[in-house]
């Protein structure tokens, strides 16, 4: 690790990314020098100053596509990393759609998977044309031209990409450029420094919140106190009296306050008096919802998957156990709350946003403003986190922002900004879910049956993302279905509940709860049968890649034996085509909750493109998963009012609660899958399994800090 770090510093120094030099640029376009640009395809731009700009079709919110996609292009081009730049793609589906979605969008950990061949081809085509340009210029055979680290050469003749850009632009675009073989890769598979670390460490990276336009106003919104509420009447006198407030307007989503600066808008909002119509609102508390859910939880539901006869095998089992798991609503709470800037112009508008559905959001704004999509210009920005929140099937925030612009008259630029309170109380949560599990073992301790019933809300059914011909919503049960484990008798069923609280995918989607259910319940069955947690899992696994990561993590951690006062737990989960196994070591914290000391992880997500980014995503996935599993929940009180409003009541993981993380990456040759999400699912069950082995306590209701758990956990520490 030390050696690697040293090399990286030298690499940084050598590539000119040294602090103290000029402030980093805010966007490649602003710096683009005049002269011919070589643009062989939609993704590569070679500029006369010898920089190579890669057009990034995915939103960058920390998961690393700006670096990863650029790495693939740079490698196929044999470019020098120091000459690489990024720019974000415009809203254009024909050129920039996610090949897995059919429209521009980022999610399901697909950024690398869908772009892999596209970016390789883009880079290879550019290289071939630069080589052809050199061959023509020097009158030598193309087969004798070499490219290395951004230098094109033939014997003593040398040229940069920039030197050749004008000629390369006249060369024919190859249909099927020759791609490198894995042995020829020089950047793919290495810890290429992230392309945005410098601007994000110096305050220079620009986010939507940082945009300022001439004559722009800032708007904030007051939403109804319960989901589905509507504005009945507004008393805006006091709000309008706040210096700087320029207008107050009701829109379908709530009441908008516009001001010359952000603080005045917030102060104006505090002064609003709104009478709400809550006749159509969801007014149940979460406890009331849970009673409804629990009443359905043993209903076998729609069958999603079945092997053998689970009911019969359970009836004949030597020993059985059952469990009822409860998972709370969770807010995503990205660090940058939802925001956008819209500036109307003749026949369209400029739209600044860290959009996760670039075309969908842009089209939604056009629709509300009544302008053609072709009149819109999206200026995609770095986004301050998302975890799924910025991708909503109804393009909700884009619509609300455009409504705010329209209500003000549709001529003035508006920055529409949610406050943290809007974010925490604003819905689109990971849904409240209940799981009923039953399992049995035979006299020898082998698992003979597992029956899993999931009860909760679907955020897919009724949206364009759900095919009405499907018998059930896979996002509710994924991870229980298509498990890497095989059980002799197995059944997965699902009950869909109606609920007025808007919900959404949340980092790793259904796997946020199914992995916890599967891995903690399986661990209990294994313990009941007096089996070894790792060997028993290996015996159940159907896929070799699953076994490989489990064996690797056991080797990395040195097994499951912990020193005195601590215990270890293991969990495995496959999601988004990637395989992840983790071992957690915990002790009892003074607060009655687990103190998580370390998590070891082994991952296989196909060809490792940038191991450094992959490790970072596993670290972050573990932290995000653990923080919520230990501390966080959104609850609704009487009248359906959300009881949390900011980080004082919606508790986030902090630095002292973050475990050490050590990651082993399997050197896979399979096509790359994702790593933005798959690191998350095994973390909480690994901790829960360690905790059960340490204390004997089973945690079936999340978060760990829920009062019902603390009542039993409290005396333990």
């Amino acid at each position, binding site marked *: 690790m030390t050696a690697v770090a040293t090399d990286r510093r030298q690499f940084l120094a050598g590539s000119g990314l040294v602090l103290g030099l000029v402030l980093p640029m805010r966007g490649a376009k602003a710096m683009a020098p005049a002269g011919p640009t070589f643009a062989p395809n939609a993704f590569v731009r070679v500029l006369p100053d010898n920089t190579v700009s890669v057009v990034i079709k995915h939103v960058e919110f920390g998961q690393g596509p700006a670096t990863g996609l650029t790495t693939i292009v740079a490698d196929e081009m044999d470019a020098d990393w120091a000459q690489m730049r990024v720019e974000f793609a415009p809203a254009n589906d024909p050129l920039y759609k996610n090949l897995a979605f059919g429209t521009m969008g980022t999610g399901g950990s697909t950024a690398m998977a869908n772009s892999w061949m596209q970016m390789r081809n883009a880079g290879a085509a550019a290289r071939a044309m630069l080589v052809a340009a050199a061959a023509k210029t020097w009158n030598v055979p193309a087969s004798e031209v070499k490219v290395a680290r951004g230098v094109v050469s033939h014997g003593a003749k040398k040229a940069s990409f920039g030197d050749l850009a004008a000629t390369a632009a006249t060369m024919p675009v190859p249909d099927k450029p020759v791609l490198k073989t894995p042995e020829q890769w020089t950047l793919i598979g290495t810890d290429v420094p992230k392309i945005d670390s410098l601007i994000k*460490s110096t305050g220079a990276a620009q*986010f939507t919140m940082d945009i300022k336009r001439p004559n722009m106003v800032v708007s904030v919104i007051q939403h109804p106190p319960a989901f589905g509420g509507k504005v009945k009447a507004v008393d805006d006198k006091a709000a309008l009296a706040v*210096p700087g407030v320029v207008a107050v307007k009701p829109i379908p989503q709530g009441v908008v306050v516009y001001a010359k600066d952000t603080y005045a808008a917030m102060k104006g909002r505090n002064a609003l008096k709104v009478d709400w119509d809550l006749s159509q609102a969801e007014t149940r508390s979460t406890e009331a919802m849970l009673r409804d859910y629990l009443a359905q939880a043993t209903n076998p539901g729609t069958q999603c998957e079945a092997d053998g006869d689970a009911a019969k095998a359970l009836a004949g089992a030597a020993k059985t156990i059952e469990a009822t798991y409860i998972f709370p609503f969770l807010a995503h709470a990205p660090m940058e709350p939802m925001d956008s800037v819209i500036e109307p112009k003749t026949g369209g508008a400029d739209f600044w946003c860290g959009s996760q559905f670039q075309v969908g959001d842009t089209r939604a704004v056009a629709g509300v403003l009544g302008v053609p999509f072709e009149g819109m210009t999206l200026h995609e920005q*770095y986004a301050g986190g998302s975890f799924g929140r910025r991708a909503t099937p109804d393009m909700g925030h884009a619509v609300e922002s455009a409504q705010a612009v329209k209500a003000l008259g549709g001529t003035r630029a508006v920055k529409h900004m949610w406050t943290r309170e809007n974010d925490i109380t604003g819905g689109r949560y990971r849904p409240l879910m209940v799981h009923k599990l039953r399992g049995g073992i035979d006299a020898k301790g082998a698992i003979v049956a597992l029956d899993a019933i999931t009860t909760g809300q679907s955020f897919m059914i009724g949206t364009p993302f759900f095919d009405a011909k499907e018998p059930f919503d896979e996002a509710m049960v994924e991870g229980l279905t298509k498990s890497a484990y095989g059980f002799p008798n197995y059944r997965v069923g699902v009950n869909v509940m109606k609920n007025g609280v808007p919900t959404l995918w949340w980092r790793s989607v259904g796997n946020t709860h199914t992995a916890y259910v599967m891995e903690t319940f399986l661990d209990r069955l294994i313990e009941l049968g007096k089996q070894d947690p790792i060997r028993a899992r290996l015996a159940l696994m159907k896929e070799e890649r699953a076994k490989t990561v489990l064996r690797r993590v056991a080797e990395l951690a040195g097994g499951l034996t912990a020193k005195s006062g601590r215990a270890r737990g293991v969990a495995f989960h496959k999601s988004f085509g990637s395989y992840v196994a983790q071992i957690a070591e915990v002790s009892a914290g003074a607060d009655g909750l687990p103190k998580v000391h370390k998590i070891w992880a082994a991952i296989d997500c196909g060809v490792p493109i940038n191991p450094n980014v992959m490790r970072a995503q596993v670290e972050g996935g573990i932290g995000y998963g653990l923080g919520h599993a230990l501390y966080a929940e959104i609850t609704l009180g009487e009248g359906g009012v959300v009881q949390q409003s900011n980080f004082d009541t919606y508790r986030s*993981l902090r630095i002292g609660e973050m475990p050490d993380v050590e990651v082993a990456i399997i050197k896979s040759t399979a096509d790359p899958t994702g790593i933005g999400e798959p690191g998350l699912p095994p973390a909480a069950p690994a901790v829960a399994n360690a905790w059960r082995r340490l204390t004997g306590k089973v945690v079936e209701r999340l978060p760990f800090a829920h009062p019902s758990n603390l009542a039993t956990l409290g005396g333990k520490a």
Partner: protein
Amino acid sequence: MAVEFLLNGKHMSFDGDPDTPLLWVIRDHAGLTGTKYGCGIAQCGACTVHLDGKNRRSCVTPIDTVAGKTVTTIEGVSGPVAEAVQKAWVAIDVPQCGFCQSGQVMSAIGLLKQKPKPTDADIDAGMAGNICRCATYVRIRQAIKDAANAKVSA
């Protein structure tokens, strides 16, 4: 009456609402956007600046309490500690989404100025007020240690 103070070494005058938190004067009026809004109630630390050299949550600092003082933001921070911290941040690629990182960097600089060789417990305490939703905490801790070591060896 206008509030006068030094912002990154330059004279700054603000004659708006005296309740306005320093954060919004920095962002909306001075046009320095490196300092971020994340919560507005001193829970997340994204708005951390240095007030007379010490870490301060600008989102809960009324502008009239800043009169006559020196404010440094991520855009203006300098010196060997700042340089060591930012170099360490880049060298191990701490940022993910990056939105909290101005605040993290400012807090780390403030911490190292108080405790040049911080222990793990010092880092936990000194950085407890800065939330990173991407959970880059493993690297934040490492970068602070690297910066402390770099300063010593330099």
